[in-house]
Structure formats: structure tokens, C-alpha cells
């Protein structure tokens, strides 16, 4: 190439939208049938905005969730094409990816911020992440013309593997770890130490912990869920790339199948023990319970976290080879539910409330004293519930030739204490013999983002 005749070329195939079908609709209107929250007006604070729109915005989220659920249900519950067509709004009162009907695939990533990052740099990163996430979740490239529309002499802005794929229900959810507020030495790098939620502490030690520091903790997290794993990976990959020099990947986890339902329209999936998981999960439709158990309320501290939640992530290794040698009767006793239907052993069907008092012929409780369902039940834990959003994983195998398999547990709750109480209650869980908690992290998940804002903006106000 000569140095005096710079050249340029542009593909005639514009890389404007990932989804060809969406192109005709224009970029101002994302390819979504879901209601869009109104844009923020200059001079109107987020709180005021939601004061005006509170009911409407909340309705939009639930409406979108229910709409997508109905689409799936109407086609028999498993129609992949209608699920792939889902588009969830990025902006709203709460971040998407929490009460959103749990998508089938996950890529979760935890980041450490760079030592040199300052407050302005962090705000810049969160702003760029927000802008990119808003586009990606609508099925667009990370930047206009990102994959193939740019200069021949520069690396493409978008990595390209999601070209031609629809939004696939992608949601991107951001969280802040304890380390963001004070680093290991206690330094307040971003001038936010005084704004740390008092409840945002590293989790206490639990029985069964075999934590590996390299896959635990993190200053920032991104949860990307989608019905197509390539779309979820594309999101994390591009967001990681944007962060180079400012935050680097500490650990990340793929999940290939959801283990929870977060909407009553979804069938209950199974975990790698082969049991239905998440039957009694908090569902989006239980709006009163969601408000009481999941969202940080205006009356809670700190104010900037209103509308947000606390996210607990646990990488739980399942020793499935041992589990698979357990007799069916014992498996069901350990869980407290039947393996086929998922009904409590006290009788009924899947959604029948377990009766922990009911005894059988031997006068022993039908649901064992150490059964998982009993120990995890709200009635055992002062009424505490969580919105679980975990995923099955298999990351190859270990050196002993066992599948490195398990449950990547994710739960959202109004207070981390809800998780702590349940996890302590599970100390005598008979399933523990087959479980090892190898990764652990906690994050404060800020409330929703209004257009023109960046995620967590209230923290820096």
C-alpha cells in the first residue's frame, strides 16, 4: 500500500442492523412491539419522571414480560422462533433481566476495575456500557455499522458473530460489587465510599464453601441472558472489549439452560440433578411479592439503590457422578419432591403447597426433616423468598474425569440477608454431600435506566 494514496472502501452490504428484517423499521424505532418508556425530558429528574410515569413504566415491564410469555404459550411453549423474536426494552423503572421471563442461556461476567481508573473514567465506562447495552438488547450492533461498515484499515467496532441474529430476548443487567466502594486496602477510588449500601458486604462463610478466589467477587458484573447463547456471548465479549484498560474480566460463566421460571407462563425446567427447579420461585406476576421481596424500596437505604436489588451469584459444583448412583427413592427424599412431576412428597401436584407436618404410615414426616424443599421453604426462613435465576453449566471436565458440572445460582433479593438466612438453613441439607460452592459474589444492582442516563447514575449524583 502506498503512503500517498489512502484508499477507502465500503461494503455494499451495510452492517446497520443485526437483523435484516428489522432494517426497514428504522433505527429510531427499535424492532420491538413492546411498549417503550417515554424519554427523559431535560430538567426532569429520574425520580420525578417515575413519579409521573410510575404506574405506566411498571406496566410496560410487566406487559412486555406477559406479552412474550403469551407468545410462547400460544405456540405450545417451546417454539424457539417466537422466543428468539423477543425484544425487551432496555430502559425502564427496573433493569431488565430480573423479572423478565428467564431466558434459556446465560453469559455472566465479573470485572475488576483498573488501578488507574478514576471517578470520571468509571462514569465514562458506565456511560459507554449503557449505550452499548441499549443497542445490543434491541438486536443492534454495538455501534452503527459496527461489524463490516467501518474502515478497511481499522478493526471493526462490533465483533460480528451476532450479525443476522435477532435480539433473542437479550437482557443486560449491571451490578456493583463491594470492591467498587472501597478496594482491598480500603481506598475510596471513586468518592463513593460513603454511599456504599450497608448491606453490601462480602457474604459470610457458609458450610460447604470451597471457594476459589479467582472465580469469586468482582467490582462490577454484567448478566447477559438470551435465548441464543451466541447473542449472550456476543454481548459480554463486546462489553469486555469496551472496558479494556478500565476494567478487566475477573471471571465469567456460561449457562446453557435456565433452572428457574420467573413467570407463571413458563414451564418449570430441570437442574442437573434431574429435578424440576424453581417451582416455588418468585414470579413476575406476583407484583406485591416482587415489591416486598425483590426491589429495594424508597424506605430502604441508600436512596440511590431504589428500584434496584441485591444479586448473589454462586457457582455450585454438582458431583453428578455420585448423585447418579443414588437410588431414586433417596434422591426424592433428599429433595422432598417427586422426580417426575415435581410434586411435594406430602402429596398433590407440582404447585401444591408442601405440608411439612403431614406424616406417613410410620408417623415420620412425609417430607424429611433435612429435605431441601423444607429447609429452603419460606416458612423455615421467616418468610424470606428470593427471585432465583440460575443456570445449568458444564465446563468440560475435571482432572478426575468427572464433568465439571453444576448450577450457577443467581438470586435477586431486596436484602442479602434473605439469601444468607436460607443458605444457613441449608447447612443440614442432605444434598450438600453432592454439592460444592466454588464461586461466590454479591452485587448491588441499581434501579432502571431512563433514556439519556447511564446505569447507576444516581450513585454519582
Amino acid at each position, binding site marked *: *500500500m502506498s503512503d*500517498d494514496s489512502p484508499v*477507502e472502501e465500503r461494503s455494499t452490504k451495510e452492517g446497520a442492523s443485526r437483523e435484516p428484517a428489522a432494517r426497514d423499521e428504522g433505527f429510531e424505532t427499535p424492532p420491538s412491539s413492546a411498549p417503550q418508556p417515554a424519554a427523559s425530558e431535560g430538567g426532569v429528574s429520574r425520580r420525578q419522571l417515575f413519579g409521573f410515569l410510575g404506574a405506566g413504566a411498571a406496566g410496560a415491564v410487566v406487559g412486555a414480560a406477559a406479552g412474550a410469555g403469551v407468545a410462547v404459550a400460544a405456540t405450545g411453549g417451546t417454539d424457539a422462533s417466537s422466543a428468539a423474536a423477543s425484544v425487551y426494552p432496555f430502559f425502564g423503572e427496573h433493569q431488565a433481566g430480573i423479572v423478565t421471563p428467564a431466558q434459556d442461556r446465560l453469559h455472566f461476567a465479573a470485572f475488576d476495575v483498573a488501578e488507574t481508573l478514576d471517578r470520571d473514567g468509571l462514569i465514562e465506562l458506565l456511560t459507554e456500557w449503557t*449505550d452499548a447495552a441499549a443497542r445490543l438488547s434491541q438486536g443492534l450492533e454495538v455501534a452503527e455499522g459496527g461489524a463490516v461498515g467501518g474502515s478497511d*484499515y*481499522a478493526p471493526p467496532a462490533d465483533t460480528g458473530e451476532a450479525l443476522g441474529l435477532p435480539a433473542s430476548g437479550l437482557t443486560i443487567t449491571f451490578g456493583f460489587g463491594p470492591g467498587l466502594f472501597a478496594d482491598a486496602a480500603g481506598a475510596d477510588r471513586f468518592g463513593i465510599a460513603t454511599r456504599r449500601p450497608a448491606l453490601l458486604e462480602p457474604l459470610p462463610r457458609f458450610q460447604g464453601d470451597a471457594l476459589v478466589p479467582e472465580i469469586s467477587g468482582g467490582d462490577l458484573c454484567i448478566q447477559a441472558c438470551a435465548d441464543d447463547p451466541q447473542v449472550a456471548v456476543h454481548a459480554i465479549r463486546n462489553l469486555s472489549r469496551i472496558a479494556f484498560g478500565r476494567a*478487566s474480566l475477573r471471571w465469567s460463566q456460561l449457562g446453557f439452560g435456565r433452572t428457574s421460571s420467573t413467570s407463571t407462563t413458563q414451564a418449570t425446567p430441570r437442574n442437573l440433578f434431574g429435578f424440576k427447579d424453581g417451582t416455588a420461585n418468585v414470579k413476575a406476576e406476583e407484583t406485591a411479592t416482587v415489591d416486598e421481596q425483590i426491589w429495594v424500596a424508597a424506605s430502604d437505604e441508600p436512596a440511590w439503590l431504589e428500584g434496584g436489588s441485591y444479586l448473589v451469584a454462586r457457582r455450585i459444583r454438582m458431583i453428578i457422578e455420585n448423585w447418579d448412583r443414588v437410588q431414586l427413592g433417596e434422591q426424592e427424599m433428599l429433595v422432598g419432591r417427586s422426580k417426575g412431576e415435581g410434586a411435594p412428597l406430602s402429596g398433590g401436584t407440582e404447585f401444591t403447597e408442601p405440608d411439612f407436618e403431614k406424616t406417613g404410615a410410620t408417623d415420620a414426616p412425609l417430607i424429611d426433616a433435612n429435605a431441601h424443599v423444607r429447609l429452603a421453604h419460606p416458612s423455615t426462613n421467616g418468610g424470606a423468598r428470593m427471585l432465583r435465576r440460575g443456570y445449568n453449566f458444564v465446563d468440560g471436565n475435571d482432572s478426575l474425569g468427572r464433568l465439571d458440572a453444576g448450577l450457577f445460582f443467581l438470586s435477586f433479593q431486596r436484602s442479602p440477608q434473605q439469601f444468607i438466612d436460607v443458605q444457613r438453613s441449608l447447612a443440614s441439607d442432605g444434598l450438600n454431600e453432592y454439592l460444592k460452592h466454588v464461586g461466590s459474589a454479591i452485587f448491588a444492582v441499581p434501579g432502571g435506566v431512563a433514556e439519556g442516563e447511564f446505569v447507576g447514575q444516581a450513585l454519582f449524583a
Partner: protein
Amino acid sequence: MTRRVLAASAAVTVFALALTGCVAKADLASAIAVDITDDGCSVAAATAPAGAVTFALANNGTDVNEFEILADDQLRIVGEKENVTPGQEIDFTAQLEPGTYYTACKFQQVGAPIGLAEFTVTGEASAVSAGDKELSEQAVTEYLAYVRSQAAELLPLVEAFAAAYAAGDDETARSLFAATRVPYERIEPTAEAFGDLDPKIDFREVDAVADGLEWTGFHRIEKDLWAPVAGDLNSDGQDAFLDWAPSTAEERQAYADGLVADVTELHDLVTADDFTVSLDAISNGAIALLDEVASGKITGEEDWWSGTDLSDFAANVQGAGVAFGAVRALAESKGDEGTALATEIDEQFTALEAALAKYGSLESGFVDYATLTDADKKTLSDEVNALAEPLSQLTATVLGV
């Protein structure tokens, strides 16, 4: 436009895209159709006014092709579009000054140009690029001088190192190894441009074996100097003694002579009067040096037996810094974006050099790479990524395309 700017102004870019769309239509109307076939290269017009000349390429052949615009010597390539696949239609724009050119295609992207045809560009020379031209020439002059100085520095170092090795003075040879490689690692992309020289000088054993080449050069000597013991593995997981034995005195002499001969040839090539480098070769060289670090040094695979990876690492970074420095004024001449990019690259160079300085210096030597923990390596890797990302935008910014 950089990715960050794009990402930060989604609303603006929506508008920009609409404008681009209009331009695309205008281009299409004035674009010169090029019918590419396996044995032909038919350009619909033989003349065009100076400025941005757009060719609408259509590969109607059976395999990948390449479109070239050659200078009037029919040798120097002033513009090319590679990888035009069968059935593909793609626009290609070249900034052409008045003069005589030749258009041609290159079937399967190898061999002689096919369908060579004269192409005349008419009109006035553009005045705006005069400043650019000056800066370009300055960058080339500067970097060329650097390459030559490093080659000149390299030669005596290699001679001394090779002599110690051939004489069996392993202690001296080991002490010279890292420092001898420094000038080479600084200009490695230039050496790599001479196809067969870099493999002879700098191939790692696993690459030589995989390519079926005789393994010679620095790393062959390195393995003799830091000889493996039974049970050691190569970087590809194979037994270190597989197809390898310590060199005999005769073999040592041959490897020593070979390295001196290859480095002498490199020196002669880059100091020849007709040797030059192009502008994008300089900026791409900076990028390539960082890639070298990210792919080879950060994993400790480069200097597998000596553990002197950090010295190579530092030399690569220095070489990248010089290459960047050569084109920096040009980048800054491209407006605010170019200035911002140069500033960011500067900052990241400083940060990376500071991270490296924790482990030593080129003057006093670096610690054995094996003593670094995974956490140490990740910190270095983060810094490399932080620099490599903005640096990867350099060529497009420098060329202004």
C-alpha cells in the same frame, strides 16, 4: 471514527448513517464498474477526475480475486482491494492524484497481475494533502533510520553472542542472550516482511517442527544454553527430547555461523538504498509488535528455556513506541479524534512501561518470567489490552480512511 466515539453518541450516528446512505447512492451513480473474471479485469472507464475514485467491483469468477491500482512503473501498488470473493459486489474507493496508473486483477491473489490496463487520472493535484505528504515522508524517513540503526546495533551483538556459544562459553552466551535479542525484537515486523529470514532467525521449536523447517536461530541456541532435563516438556506439551539432542561442537559452529549470516543478510537488506517502508507498514508494525506481546510473550512461550520473555516484551513495546512516534504527528493532523487517540496511546504506553518496570529494565535485566504469578501476568495482560485496543485504530487514523 473510533469505536468509543461511536458508542458514546448513538443518537448522532443514527443521523450519520442516513447521510452515508445518500453518499452511497451518489457513489453508485459515478462508480466505475469493474468486471472481475478468472482471466480478465475489465474496467468500464479508462479515465477519471482526480480525487476519490470509486470502483464498483464485481467478482464474476470462480475464486477469490484482488483488484489493484498500480503506479505508472506498473510495480508500485497505490491501492488494492483484497479478498473479493466469487459473486461479491463491493465498492472500493482510492484517492488518486493526476497521472497515469494501471488497473489489474490478481486471480487467487498470487502471481502476475491479470488484465493490466492503463488508467488516466485528470485534473488538478489536490493541495490539501501537501501537509500530509510532508508528514508521511518525515514518518518514513524517521522510521527507516530507526530500523537501520537497530539492524546495525544487532549485528555486532549477534557476532559476540554466537562466538561465545560456538566456543562453548555457555556462561557468557547466556549472559548475552537477552540483550542480543533486544534490537531484533524492536524491529521484528520489518524482519518478518522478508519472508524466510524471520523463521531462520527467530522460530520457536514448535513452529519449526509444525512447518517442517530445519530449526535454527536464537531459540535453537537457547535450548542448548538452558538445556532441558529428563521429563521437561516443550511449550506444545511434547517431551523436550523428542527429535532433539544437545548440539555437538560442529553443530554449534553451524548454528552460530547461520545466525550471523542471516542477521548480516537482514542488515544488508534494510540498509540497501532501495529499501523503504510504507506508512501503513509503520503503524501496522506498531500494532503487530503489541500482538507479539499479547500472543507470545504474555504466555511465556517465546523464551521457553531461558525465561527471558520480559526482555523481549520490553523491546517489542519500545519498538512499537518508536513506530507510533513516527506516525504520531500524522495522526494528530487528523483532527480532534486523531489527537485524542494519540493522547490515549501515550497514556497507555506510559502505564505499560510502568507495569514492566516493576520487574526490571533492559539495562539491568528482567526477572525470569517463571517467577511471575498468574495475577502478575494478568496485570501485564490487562495493560497490553489497554494499549493494544487504541493502537489497533492507528492505521485507519493515520491513513484517514
